[in-house]
């Protein structure tokens, strides 16, 4: 299945990308994708899971299994206002 992963703020700086199209096996959760990202980027280690996860523009449980066509984003600590 294909999942679009978006990078914002510090995660865009760390990965050097705005987004990525991932080809994932069925049953992959958002948290699996986060762990894969941590393996690829040393700067993310020590951060066992993101503070918040968004699937299709809504906050979601990181354990949620992804579906084909989902848009996934990890939300670094928000700092609006």
């Amino acid at each position: 299945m294909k999942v679009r992963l978006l990078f914002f703020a510090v995660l865009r700086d760390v990965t050097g990308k705005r987004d990525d199209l991932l080809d994932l096996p069925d049953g992959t959760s958002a948290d699996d994708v986060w762990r894969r990202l941590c393996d690829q980027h040393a700067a993310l280690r020590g951060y066992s899971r993101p503070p918040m996860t968004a699937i299709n523009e809504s906050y979601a449980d990181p354990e949620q299994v992804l579906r084909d066509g989902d848009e996934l984003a990890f939300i670094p600590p928000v700092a609006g206002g």
Partner: protein
Amino acid sequence: MSYLTDSPIDSAALVRSVVRPGDGAYVLFEGVVRNHNEGKQVESIDYEAYLPMAEKEMALVIDDVRRAYPDVAVAVLHRLGHLVVGDASIAIVCASPHRAEAFEACRMTIDRIKQTVPIWKKERGPDGEEWVGWQCTHG
């Protein structure tokens, strides 16, 4: 209705958009860029958002505030992009027949926005640049 803008915020226009003839008070809150944070000098801040989601989350906050304070009319505008010291990054207007609810609703609105709306800021100053909130939770 958009809650996010790339332009300077016109708070007077925001007030006009929300105050009704039956209101006896409105509270206008503006968050402004300050010249220091956690012991460091700040010259400017770049704000960015996960745009469609930030609009949705802003609407959810405002729905909750309206449920908690049914008599209060709420308007919010958050600015994105490059802001310098003294610039307003957000304006919130809460109008109400009576002042107590307007103060409380305004406080709830800004507190909730800071918790949930996917907006980030990168502070820049003589010591370099830093995404706010990242360092303190990382590691």
